[in-house]
């Protein structure tokens, strides 16, 4: 296998401040086996000196490179592009971070910096010798459909934005509601299963009684909250209680709810089934204020544990109080109670006054809703994680908001956890935007630094299957594990845990890592 290494020493990175003996590094590089070119250049990735480096790379038929510089992510992409044109693939370029690992912190012990830099150079050479060129694959997206599960506030916002970007949207809605949507709306339809990967999903849907398969490139989960579900002791005791959105609807249609109206933060004060989240407050306060303005003679009470009137809704709190809405705070150990024999009386200990009060109400309203019960099925179909409260979970903060760990699957609105209409709409817009950008590419790229299984060593213990967050390993026809390249994100967790050592992560194999570590430990410290 051809192995001609070019070593580039970037002056701006490794000689400012002047701590290292650059000529010594140059000498070590030139004398190392397989190194056919050693260049010292200033600001290598800046452009001017790049052409000189590439000229020599071509002349010396270099097929891999080591750049003694800074952090890989700070290197201008033009360096990688130039090397690619000169025949050096990205995975055969090793950027050694001398700047931040050796030079900058080296002021504490300058006499040790040289030995460390030399060790890092030697380790890079030893590692790069062992690498193999890797290429990425592409696969065309069969369709550019974006499926949006749920036609609520978030789903509609997502559909609008995605359609504006030219994407074809298909909204799947479990109820029979109809609305004007830019793309296709499928009422009475649910997702029951799914397979595939971002760019090429196949969802199994049930439209009415018919079961069919639907291909799409991206999915947006906008299933909303468990709006109509009221669970908990208070809901059980008072069967006529309504969720907050129903009170809102009554006001919209000019219907007067029977007073006194009591809005309780949750039908389940213990928090076992329904957790009070953010959404409750903005809407509760605005609805209460609106009710008081429309019907000043109606008594309106808000009974709560924590008044979470965030941001500008604090002003709604003030307004509601000034309009005469009465607020009662309770502590969790002494929650509001309703005796089923007297289902129109709420007793609660007001923690501010340490007194127990009773309110005879005409309408009981619950401001909190549980998570949507459908989330579990959807999350399973799409293989995305769920939160402990029953919502769908977004990926970590390192990924973008409204995204999941699975490329091509986005989640927004109350499907994550119950939230106000305004924020759900913003999230829907963001998800629609990201999904549209994703499908615009028309194809997906995969491969390169991915896991690879040596089938003879595989004992089919399924440890890798249980460990991989992306479902890339699967049992193939031979009864042994194979890696689905389109799903593999190149983390190497499977390789790290395989008890039979049957899996390697390309470019980071056990031998490559071991050689690098051993070489680093060589020489002086």
């Amino acid at each position, binding site marked *: 296998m051809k192995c001609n290494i070019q070593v580039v020493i970037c002056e701006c990175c490794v000689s400012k401040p002047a701590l290292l003996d650059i000529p010594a590094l140059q000498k070590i590089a030139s004398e190392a086996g397989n190194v056919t070119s050693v260049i010292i250049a200033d600001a290598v990735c800046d452009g001017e000196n790049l052409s000189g480096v590439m000229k020599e790379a071509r002349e010396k038929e270099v097929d891999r490179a080591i750049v003694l510089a800074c952090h890989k992510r700070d290197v201008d992409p033009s360096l990688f592009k130039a090397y690619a044109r000169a025949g050096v693939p990205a995975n055969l370029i090793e950027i050694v971070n001398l700047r931040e690992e050796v030079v900058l*912190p080296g002021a504490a012990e300058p006499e040790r910096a040289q030995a460390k830099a030399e060790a890092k150079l030697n380790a890079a050479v030893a590692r790069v010798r062992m690498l193999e060129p890797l290429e990425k694959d592409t696969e065309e997206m069969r369709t550019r459909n974006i499926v949006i599960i749920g036609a609520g506030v978030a789903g509609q916002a997502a559909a609008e934005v995605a359609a504006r970007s030219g994407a074809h949207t298909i909204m799947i809605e479990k109820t029979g509601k109809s609305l004007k949507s830019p793309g296709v709306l499928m009422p009475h339809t649910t997702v029951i299963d799914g397979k595939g990967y971002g760019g090429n999903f196949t969802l199994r849907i049930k439209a009415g009684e018919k079961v069919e398969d639907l291909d799409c490139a991206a999915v947006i989960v906008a299933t909303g909250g468990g709006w109509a579900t009221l669970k908990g002791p208070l809901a059980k005791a008072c069967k006529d209680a309504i969720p907050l959105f129903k009170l809102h609807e009554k006001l919209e249609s000019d219907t007067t709810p029977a007073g006194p109206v009591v809005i309780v933060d949750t039908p389940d004060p213990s928090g076992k089934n329904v957790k009070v989240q953010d959404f409750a407050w903005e809407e509760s306060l605005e609805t209460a204020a609106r009710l008081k303005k429309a019907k000043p003679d109606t008594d309106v009470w808000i009974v709560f544990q924590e008044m979470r009137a965030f941001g500008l809704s604090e002003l709604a709190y003030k307004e509601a109080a000034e309009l005469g809405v009465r607020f009662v705070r309770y502590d969790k150990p002494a929650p509001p109670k309703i005796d089923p024999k007297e289902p129109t009386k709420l007793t609660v200990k007001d923690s501010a006054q340490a007194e127990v009060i009773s309110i005879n109400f005409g309408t009981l309203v619950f401001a909190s809703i549980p998570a949507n019960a459908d989330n579990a099925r959807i999350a399973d179909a799409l293989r995305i994680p769920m939160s402990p409260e029953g919502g769908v979970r977004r990926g970590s903060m390192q990924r973008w908001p409204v995204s999941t760990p699975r490329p091509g699957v986005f989640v927004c609105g109350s499907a994550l956890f119950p939230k106000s209409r305004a924020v759900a709409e913003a999230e829907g817009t963001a998800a629609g935007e990201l999904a549209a950008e994703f499908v615009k590419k028309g194809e997906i790229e995969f491969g390169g630094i991915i896991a690879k299984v040596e089938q003879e060593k595989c004992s089919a213990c399924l440890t890798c299957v249980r460990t991989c967050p992306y479902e890339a390993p699967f049992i193939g026809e031979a009864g042994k594990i194979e890696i689905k390249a389109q799903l593999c994100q190149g983390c190497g967790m499977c390789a790290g845990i395989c008890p039979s050592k049957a899996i390697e992560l390309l470019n980071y194999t056990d031998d490559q890592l071991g050689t690098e570590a051993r070489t680093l430990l060589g020489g002086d*410290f």
Partner: protein
Amino acid sequence: MAAHRPRIVGFCCERHGMDAVVLAARSGKTHDASVRLVQVPCSGRVDGLHILKALEDGADAVVVLGCLEKNCYYDTGSIEGRKRVAYVKSMLKEAGVEPERVEMFNAASTNAWAFPEMVSKMADVVKRLGPLGSGGEER
């Protein structure tokens, strides 16, 4: 007789692990040169074998540096890394080697203090326990 200089190798993830190293360096923080890093895509890539081999190859201590749990780019990566380190620690204990020589650290791209603190902590551990296995022998 010169004091023993700790020989520590670290497996550092290329995301927040390396970002923390970079932020520390660019915030004027200095640390001693005892830790030499091998970059991996994710701290979950690290196998117990890599850690043990490193100890065999001359390391006095081995560290694994990954993203914060629940904020790993690969979701469960740093949790796996920690499991691996815990497993090695228990094996070392059985073999009569001090388990403090192997440690897992988590850092974020906004932690300027995390990496220098890790370096000084592990260097102290090695200075206290001496080089691996020889009870104070010079290399």
